[in-house]
């Protein structure tokens, strides 16, 4: 108690006494923040400027009177460049590709955390190993597989592939969380005659809402922002292609039409940014829980 008291009293003193010595610290943080923010602000401002302005003057000149902001670029990309369709496609890809792996992973994670079976250790090592397998090492045969069953160029191909690719992380994260639940809770539930299935739905899932929320956000962001899997499995199919694929193509075809490219990029960023700002807490928790600690 006395230790803590003295630490609390001592801590603020040197800081407050030498406030001027902290100016470099504040300056460094302000500069770093500006450097990090400028690219995004440049994009956002440019996406609201008329084409003639964007392609002849810097975004930093946009704040001079008279203001000439417009939403025409957005109307243009959403209707003329298949971006509206791609936005819907991204949603259609991302939602099932988030729901399926989370459910499937919860099952496996429960077995790993609270059931005894021979080979449990070896199988979990396999999951940890698969955690880092690069998609590039799996994608060619996966493409052959989806082509063989006629799924290439369809939503289910992407759903299933993302489920497979997202599972190692999902199982790993949930297993760590489930495993940390108190053992006594299960013992008393079983004493009351609950089956493992009942314990899973009545105890494990409700208590794991924070972990599941983290995982849902992670998988959502991952699939929404994915280019490689979509490019290979549905890249040649504009009716199914998500935003990332469509925008990557626009970079090739629209080249220097910055007013359109900036608007298109921002369309793809809106949803992740909303999710990020509203659920930041869970996102950060997912990052912390998903790393293998030393």
């Amino acid at each position, binding site marked *: 108690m006395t230790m803590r008291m003295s630490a609390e009293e001592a801590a603020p003193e040197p800081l407050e006494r030498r406030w001027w010595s902290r100016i470099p610290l504040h300056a460094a*943080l302000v500069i770093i923040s500006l450097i990090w923010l400028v690219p995004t602000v440049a994009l956002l401002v440019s996406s609201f400027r008329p084409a003639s302005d964007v392609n002849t003057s810097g975004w930093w000149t946009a704040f001079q009177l008279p203001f000439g902001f417009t939403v025409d670029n957005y109307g243009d990309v959403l209707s003329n460049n298949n971006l509206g369709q791609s936005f819907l496609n991204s949603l259609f890809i991302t939602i099932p590709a988030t729901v399926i792996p989370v459910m499937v992973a919860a099952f496996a994670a429960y077995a790993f955390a609270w059931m005894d079976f021979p080979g449990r250790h070896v199988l979990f090592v396999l999951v940890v190993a698969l955690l880092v397998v690069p998609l590039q090492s799996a994608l060619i045969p996966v493409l052959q597989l989806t082509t063989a069953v006629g799924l290439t160029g369809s939503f289910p191909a992407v759903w299933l592939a993302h489920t497979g690719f997202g599972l190692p992380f999902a199982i790993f994260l949930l297993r760590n969380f489930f495993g940390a639940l108190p053992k006594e809770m299960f013992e008393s539930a079983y004493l009351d005659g609950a089956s493992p299935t009942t314990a899973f739905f009545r105890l494990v899932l409700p208590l794991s809402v924070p972990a599941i929320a983290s995982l849902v956000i992670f998988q959502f962001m991952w699939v929404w922002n994915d*280019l490689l899997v979509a490019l290979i499995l549905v890249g040649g199919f504009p009716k199914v292609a998500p935003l990332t694929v469509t925008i990557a193509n626009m970079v090739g075809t629209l080249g220097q039409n910055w007013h359109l490219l900036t608007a298109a990029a921002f369309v793809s960023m809106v949803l992740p940014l909303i999710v*990020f700002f509203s659920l930041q807490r869970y996102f950060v928790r997912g990052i912390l829980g998903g790393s293998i600690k030393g």
Partner: protein
Amino acid sequence: MDFGTALLAVIVVVGVPAITVLYALGTERVLQLIPERRRAGLRPWLWLLPGFAFLIVFLVYPTVQTIVLSLLDRRSESFVGADNYIELFGQGSFWQTIGNTVLWLVFFTGITLVFGLLIAVLTDRVRYETAVKALIFIPMAVSFVAAGVIWNFMYAFNEQIGTVNAATVALGGEPQAWLFEWPRNTFMLIIVGIWMWVGFAMVILSAGLKGISAELLEAARIDGATEVQVFTRIILPLLAPTIAVVGTTIVIVALKTFDIVYVMTGGQYDTQVIGTLFYQERFANHDAGTAAAVAVLLLLTIIPVMILNIRRSQAQEATR
């Protein structure tokens, strides 16, 4: 998108949870049919089945199959032994690709870690910590494709448009074509990666930093340690395991790099990395054998990290 697709998506979103609940209840029903002493033995396998079915079909089998394909010709028809590898090793462009991947490994990983640590330590000392951290973290939420557009715009040659060239001219320099000349272009792409991933390093390192007891640091300061000494003698050693965790994650990101290079240069002007060379070989050169060989080499470079991760997770299990 037609009505059928919409219906399918709704069915999937509503149906998948329903199916999983039914599956769980179904397994319990099935288990009631067999003798009680066998139930506990069979149950875990039924719970693992869906997950492992996906893992085997979409990860284990394809990875093994990729190794097989790397030993076959470009159309995967006849066995050619190690020819794909020998051919790769004989190409100057392959070593260029390896060189770039090494640049990514060293500079992307190193600078991301240093910046992440620096920002974590600096923000720890100010009241507006949360605001700065959220700001640095924003790029993490954005796709590599959007980041590619953002930075293509930053690097635009016209100094009236491109922010980086505007700054260069303002400082008395000449506007540059940042993405055309090796090795500068690779470093310019690495900057994009750093911009995106520093937030990740910062978040984990910052959490590690909060775990170091304030009393310990204060005691050192009272004993006359300077801030630099506190950092190098106490914070750094205590944070070493966390730095290692972040480092391995970023090493993997570096090795797998695909999107930034694909969107910003398409691998042209000598910016190719292993992750994009695979795509180039498979979809531009239509050579499945060589593409698979590249993928296998990528997998091999990742195996040390894989072993490290397995060791760590086992150590973690032991303390559970």
